[in-house]
């Protein structure tokens, strides 16, 4: 069941589109439900599809196409490090190595305590702050150094 809070947010997104184009809100709806529940189970996707009165497969297509949707559990904090060219030139490899050593995980793995998941990201459009990463998709941390990464990890309780 979608929570009342999710429904309220989805309804706000629906105001952006014509009444007969409910499917247009699927990008937001999946984002809203994922933010609330941590990841998108098959059940979440079905619920979103039903609410928007669209075929389940069409919602599934969207959820699998865009890489910020997570179709598997990603722990409490999903850390996505950009390793594309501008970040690579400013040594994102060192940041990845540091995170992997510190969290004891490789890419696409969840730490033993279920707290962190590490992902490799593509260009996030903020290359002046390279190297950089996002936490749970919506908070970006720029100008990373191993030291600043430690501080950020400490702040994630």
């Amino acid at each position, binding site marked *: 069941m979608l929570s009342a809070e999710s429904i309220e947010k989805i309804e706000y997104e629906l105001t952006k589109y014509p009444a007969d184009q409910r499917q247009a809100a699927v990008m937001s709806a999946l984002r809203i439900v994922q933010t609330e529940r941590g990841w998108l189970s098959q059940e979440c996707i079905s619920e979103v599809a039903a609410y*928007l009165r669209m075929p389940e497969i069409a919602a599934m297509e969207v959820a699998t*196409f865009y890489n910020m949707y997570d179709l598997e559990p990603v722990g409490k904090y999903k850390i996505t490090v950009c390793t594309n060219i501008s970040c690579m030139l400013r040594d994102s490899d060192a940041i990845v190595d540091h995170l992997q050593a510190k969290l004891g995980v490789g890419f696409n793995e969840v730490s033993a305590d279920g707290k962190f998941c590490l992902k490799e990201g593509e260009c996030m459009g903020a290359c002046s702050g390279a190297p950089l990463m996002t936490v749970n998709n919506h908070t970006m941390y720029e100008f990373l150094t191993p030291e600043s990464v430690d501080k950020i990890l400490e702040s994630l309780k």
Partner: protein
Amino acid sequence: MATKEMKARVTKTKAPVMSALKGQTLLCLRTLTEKNPASLATYEQLGGYTQLKRLVTEKVKAVDIITQVKVSGLRGRGGAGFPTGLKWSFMPRYFDGTKYLVCNSDEGEPGTFKDRDILRYNPHQLIEGMAIAAYTLGARVGYNYIHGEIWQDYEIFEAALQEARAAGYIGENLFGTNFSVDLYAVHGYGAYICGEETALIESIEGKKGQPRFKPPFPASYGVFGKPTNVNNTESFASIPWILQHGGQAFAELGVPNSGGTKLFSVSGHVEKPGNFEVKMGTTFKELLDMADGVWKGRKLKAVIPGGPSTPVMTADMIMNATMDYDGLSKAGSSLGAGSMIVMDETTCMVKTLKRLSYFFFEESCGQCTPCREGTGWVYRIINRITEGNGKMEDLDLLTDVSSNISGRTICALGDAAATPVLSFIKHFRLEFEYYIQHGKSMVDGK
């Protein structure tokens, strides 16, 4: 749903220090000189929204506005460089139903981050530009599609829209006239391909972002099958200035064939990466100086001047180039989105190309076989070279595969994927040969 927190964010966004703005000509980022650049009050204080009000209340004719945009020489700032005024003239004037406007803020081309600064430092100028375009083209509804990864900037823009709505700059019957326009922010969620305008339109409709065949072009069949005008963020943000000062004044800021100012995103091996808004025709050297030069006192090796879909240039090629459409094309590359990726002498071009190839492989939408399969081939071949298993004939194979992607796909991602391969091998062939012969990099020995 602009929360208090979001509103606070608009007023809290701080501008960079003034000294950083030296040598720049701020049009799209004109609020950067002020304390709270993103706020409505700041924009109004600088004369913001006066052009929208003037055009709408004086009922200035669409054809006159489009003429100014044509005269300005403004060319699409998303990378294609198509003349904006001409694009506007493609929109059908009479249409029985809703026409749409779309702003493309889905910048995901590696090294591109200029639109982000417009969204977070001067969102109201973008809103005014979009509203003027809506008035001109008769579009009732507009969407700004924002790259999902810059979520905090999406929220700033949403809050700015709320401010503009509350102040009567967008909404119903503006300034007591019968002109109405609704503008909304929508977001991507991690797909480079959605920067392609028809993939973006599919995404707005709630579908996976796979480009459409053209024709029909968006001007006749766009969002929800209705006539739609799609422009880049920086293009829209240039509009209010053009109408305030006239198209001619904008054109004169630049050089022939490249009117106005341009935001250059400078990243990679420079001391001070960032966006620099300068007049078209500014020299590469000046721009590099603004970024405080190549970092750590090292020598310049190569530059990708407009994002990876533009050919890489050696230091010699770019050193005396001017940064404008003709200047860069004469020098052997192109302006693209003005995304300048700077590489110093320690950069291994083979490894750099490997990362770029992985990006295109990862982001190919899978619709066209040459791109879906070809990008995978290219990545795997470069990967085997870096693993020490390369063969000398791989270089011809890479060129062959890339040439067979280029021009054989629905959208330009295929061409974009081929460009770095062809240009890296062309200009740095020795490095590739060395890697194949020795199983290690000529540059870092690893």
